[in-house]
C-alpha cells in the first residue's frame, strides 16, 4: 500500500480498517483556508464521479472529518490528497 507524510503542524491524519472500508479521520489543527479548500476539492472530485460509495465524507465540528473510503479507491483517495497538497510525500511500501 502507501506510506505518506504530511505537515503535522497543520493537520492530523489517522486511518483504520473497517470491513471492506478504510476509515480516515482528518483533524485540521488551524483554521487554514487553503487546507479547507483543498479538502473541499477532494470531496468534489469524488462527489462528481459516477460512483457514489467510493469515498464518503462526514463533517464534524472543529474541522474534524471522517472519511469512509472503499478499499478499491484507497490509492485514488490518497493520491487526490497528494494532488491537493494535503500530503507532502507518497511512496509505495515494499509489500507490493
Amino acid at each position, binding site marked *: 500500500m502507501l506510506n505518506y507524510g504530511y505537515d503535522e503542524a497543520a493537520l492530523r491524519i489517522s486511518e483504520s480498517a473497517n470491513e471492506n472500508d478504510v476509515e480516515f479521520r482528518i483533524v485540521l489543527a488551524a483554521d487554514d483556508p487553503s487546507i479547507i479548500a483543498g479538502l473541499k476539492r477532494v470531496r468534489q472530485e469524488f462527489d462528481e464521479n459516477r460512483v*457514489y460509495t467510493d469515498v*464518503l465524507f*462526514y*463533517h464534524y465540528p472543529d474541522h474534524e472529518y471522517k472519511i469512509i473510503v472503499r478499499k478499491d479507491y484507497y490509492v485514488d483517495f490518497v493520491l487526490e490528497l497528494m494532488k491537493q497538497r494535503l500530503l507532502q510525500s507518497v511512496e509505495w511500501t515494499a509489500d507490493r
Partner: protein
Amino acid sequence: MEQQAIWAIGIFLVIYALIISEKIHRTIIAMIGGLLMVVLGIVDQETAIHHIDFNTLGLLIGMMIIVSTTAETGMFKYIAVLAAKKAKGEPIRILILLSLITAACSAFLDNVTTVLLIVPVTFSITRQLRVDPVPFLLTQIIASNVGGTATLIGDPPNIMIGSAVPELTFMAFIANLAPVAILVMVVYVPFFIWMFRKKIQTTEELKQGVMAMSEKELISDPKLLRKCLIILGLTLLGFFTHQMLHLESATVALAGAFLLLLLTGEHKLEQALTKVEWMTIFFFVGLFVLVSGLVETGVIAQLAKRAIDLTGGDPIATSMLILWLSAIASAFIDNIPFVATMIPMIQEMGSMGVSDLEPLWWSLALGACLGGNGTLIGASANLIVAGMAGKEGHPIRFVQYLKVGFPLMLLSVVISSVYVYLRYLI
C-alpha cells in the same frame, strides 16, 4: 385508410414489444418507431410535429435545468444530514424521514431527479450506520411514486395529462390528487416500520457518530443556493397561479430556468443543458409521434368506442376500468407510453358523449402513477434506483421488490377506487 391503420397498429405493437423486451434502448426504439410512421407516410412530418406535446417537453427541460443547478449547492445533502440528526441516528426513524422527504420532493420535482438526489445521501448515511441500504432505497422508490402523484409536475403521467387538458390546472391536480397521495403515504408508513425495523439495527456508538456530524459545511455555495431558492420559489408560485396569469406550465418552468441561468451566468449554461436528460426527452418525442399514427388513422377512436361499448358508457364502470387497467399496465410496462396512448382515447370518449371526463382523468393519473410501484420496472425512478444500487454492490432483485411493492400498490389502488367512487361518482 384501412390499410394505413393496419400498418400503424403493426408498427405500434412491434415497437411496444421491443420497448418491453429492453433489448435495445427505449429511446432509440421509440424514435425509430415514430420516424417509421413518418417515413411510411402514415402521418406527415407536420402532423407528427403537431402531435408532439411541447408543453410536456418544455416543462421537463425547464425543471431539469432548475433542479440540476440547485443540486450543486449541496442543499439536498444538508437536508438529509439534518433529518438523520433529528431522527437521533435511529435507522428506522431515518428511513421514515427520508421516505417522507422523498415523497414531498417528488411532488414538486420530477421523480427521477428526486431519487438521483436522495440515493447518494442515503448511501452516505447507511454506510456510516453500517446498515443495509436496500430497505431505505425500496421505501424511497415507493415514496417517490406516491409523492409524484400529488401534483401536476410530480410525475410524467400527470405532466402529460395536465398539458393535454388545459382545464386541469395545477391547483386542480393538488385539490384532487394530493389528498389521495397523503392518505396512501400515511397508510404506508406503519407498513414500512413493520417490514423493515428488524432489518436495520445499529450500535449506540454509530448513532452517536451521526449525531455529532456538522451539516453546516455541506452548503458548498451559499450565494448560488440563495439564487436557486428564489427561482424555485418563484417558479412554484408561477405554477400555483399559472391559470390566472394565462400562462402554460412550460412557459413558467422555462422562464424559471432561463432566469436562473441569467443570474448564475453563462458558465453554468452548457453544463445545465448537458445535464438535461435528453434520452428521456427524445423518448417522449418518439412516443408522441408513434401514438399520432394511431390517432390519425382512427385506431384510438375505434378503441375508445370499444371501451365505451364494454362499460355501456357508465361513468363508474369506465372510471374503474381505467383506474385498474392503468395500474396493472403501469406496473409492468413503462407508464409514459401507456399514458401517451390513453390520453387521446379519453379525449375521444369525450367527443362520444361521455359528459364528465374529470373522474376519468383522475383515474388515469392515479392508476398510472401509483401503478408504477407494482414492480421494479414499473417506473423510471424504480429502474434508476435499482441501477444505482446494483452498481454500488447492493443489487435489488425483481422478486424481492415485487413482494414489497406489489401488495402495497394494490392497497393504494383500492384506496384510490374508494376515493374516486366517493368523491366523483355518487
